[in-house]
């Protein structure tokens, strides 16, 4: 029998282009303090926080134990355990939820951090994700992979770059209501179109900016969650799936892995009509083309028709299913962190604490994270407040 799991506390930093005045611990410690003070929990396995899941990347942090600096913050030496997730942060949340649902632990802390600014180039890090015999020689990195996939997707469905340019425009507009967002404001599709070309057809304003930040959250099983907060946010469904590592194996214009991840999450949460049953969604969009693409993978639109859902306003703040009220990753969340930020944003929405970007009366939400080159890996979480069914 699986146990019910809720997020009881979640905090995120402001996202900046370069937190030059903070080391990893200094960036993360205030968040841990907020979560532990809010819940009154201490790191005492069996009587407080039982276990920790951290999320970070060795190459970005330039050390082979990127969770090393996190030990002091998540109870190292207190006889609990810790595991590191080195992929998208949604997986850290999913992992924490699984350890609780299975009965291994009652209360788990999740701490995710990334400072993309610390390395001279984000692309040098993602270049190293590829094997050395063939792809590295070709200079492959995640930005280039995004460009190849964007070309493939737009060509397949005959979508113009101008139509995609509207996506970062809305992201920047939504982001204006999110005080933690980095790149926001009033921009036009013309601004996007004439911004610096990065990896055709992706342009500077069309690509998520380099940023630094962290997320901390605490998850608990039902009885303890009820004692820790009046507004638990239940994780009612989750799923993940990954596609082939080698780009040449994939039809880059389709996202089978997202479809499968979503199907698994929907099944657990009892969702049969996502557009009708979800009230808000936070999805990880690293470059503009991914927004309609992910709509399709999530089962919200037919292949090639995601852009129409966007254009007819269905996913605007006042639409049927508001998507990325926070502005999303295009406003600046580092690789690895986006899924955890999306889950935190859903947590805020479902507690009616999202401030100026609150979706009124949101009861059920979807958070999505992506990792690997060109959307290779996807994780989907379904969350609900007490009215959104704890399942």
């Amino acid at each position, binding site marked *: 029998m699986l146990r019910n799991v809720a997020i009881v506390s979640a905090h995120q930093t402001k996202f900046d282009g370069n*937190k*030059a*005045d*903070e*080391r990893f*611990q*200094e960036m993360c*410690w205030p968040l841990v303090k907020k979560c*532990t003070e809010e819940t009154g929990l*201490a*790191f005492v396995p069996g009587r407080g926080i039982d276990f920790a899941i951290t999320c970070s990347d060795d*190459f970005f942090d*330039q050390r082979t134990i990127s969770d090393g600096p996190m*030990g*002091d*913050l998540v*109870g*190292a*030496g207190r006889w609990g355990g810790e595991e590191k997730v080195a992929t998208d942060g949604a997986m850290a949340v999913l992992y924490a939820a699984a350890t609780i649902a299975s009965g291994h632990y009652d209360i788990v802390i999740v701490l995710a951090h990334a*400072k993309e600014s*610390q*390395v*001279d180039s984000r692309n*040098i*890090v993602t270049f*190293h994700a590829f094997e*050395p*015999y063939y792809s590295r020689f070709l200079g492959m990195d995640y930005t280039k992979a995004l460009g190849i996939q964007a070309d493939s997707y737009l060509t397949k469905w005959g979508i113009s770059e101008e139509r995609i340019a509207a996506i970062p425009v809305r992201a920047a507009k939504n982001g204006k209501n999110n005080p933690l967002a980095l790149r926001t404001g009033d921009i036009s599709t013309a601004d996007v179109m004439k911004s610096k070309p990065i990896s055709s057809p992706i342009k500077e304003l069309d690509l998520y900016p380099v940023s630094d930040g962290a997320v901390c959250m605490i998850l608990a099983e039902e009885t303890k969650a009820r004692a820790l907060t009046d507004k638990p946010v239940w994780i009612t469904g989750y799923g993940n799936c990954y596609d082939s590592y080698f780009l040449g194996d994939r039809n880059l214009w389709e996202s089978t892995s997202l479809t499968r991840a979503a199907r698994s999450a929907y099944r657990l949460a009892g969702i049969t009509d996502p557009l009708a049953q979800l009230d808000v969604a936070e999805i990880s969009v690293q470059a503009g083309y991914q927004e309609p693409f992910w709509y399709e993978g999530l089962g919200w639109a037919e292949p090639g028709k995601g852009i129409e859902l966007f254009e007819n306003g269905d996913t605007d703040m006042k639409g049927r299913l508001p998507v990325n009220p926070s502005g999303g990753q295009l406003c600046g969340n580092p690789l690895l962190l986006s899924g955890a930020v999306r889950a935190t944003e859903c947590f805020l929405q479902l507690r009616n604490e999202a401030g100026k970007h609150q979706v009124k009366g949101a009861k059920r939400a979807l958070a999505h994270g992506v990792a690997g080159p060109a959307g290779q890996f996807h994780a989907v979480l379904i969350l609900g407040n007490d009215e959104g069914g704890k399942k």
Partner: protein
Amino acid sequence: MATKTDKEGRELVEIRYEMGIPGTFAKGPIMGYFLEKLKEKELWGTRCGKCNNVIFPPRVLCPKCMVDMAEWVKMEDFAHIVTFDVVHFPTINPLTGEMRPVPYTSLFMVFPNGAGFFHFGIEHDPEKIKPGKKVVPVWADKREGRPADLLGWVLAEE
């Protein structure tokens, strides 16, 4: 260079690759203060207001009590050896990319206020190094607020 071959004499093709991910580490206010004080030949740690433990080099929080450190503490200019190791295999100094000369000595020491730490020992003769012996710091002539400002520790004159 001779061609490498397998048991059947076939050439083994390998790809030589040197990886580099250049970047910049932020010092932050705590480590920044510590490094800055090295210029003045001063060693500073932090004290926890709850358990009173002093931690050296300084840290953002007390890992035992999980609270912010309460105050800065100037360390004494001597310490005592707890244990040591003389290292005979070559390792790279990550800050310069050069090989360290061998042998070199790692000393584990304790300050009079109880803070344990490790650093280089200038002495490499294991017969002369003993737990409990008193050691003093050896400073670089030119100090720039970098870890290498403190060269190591040497046995104090008896």
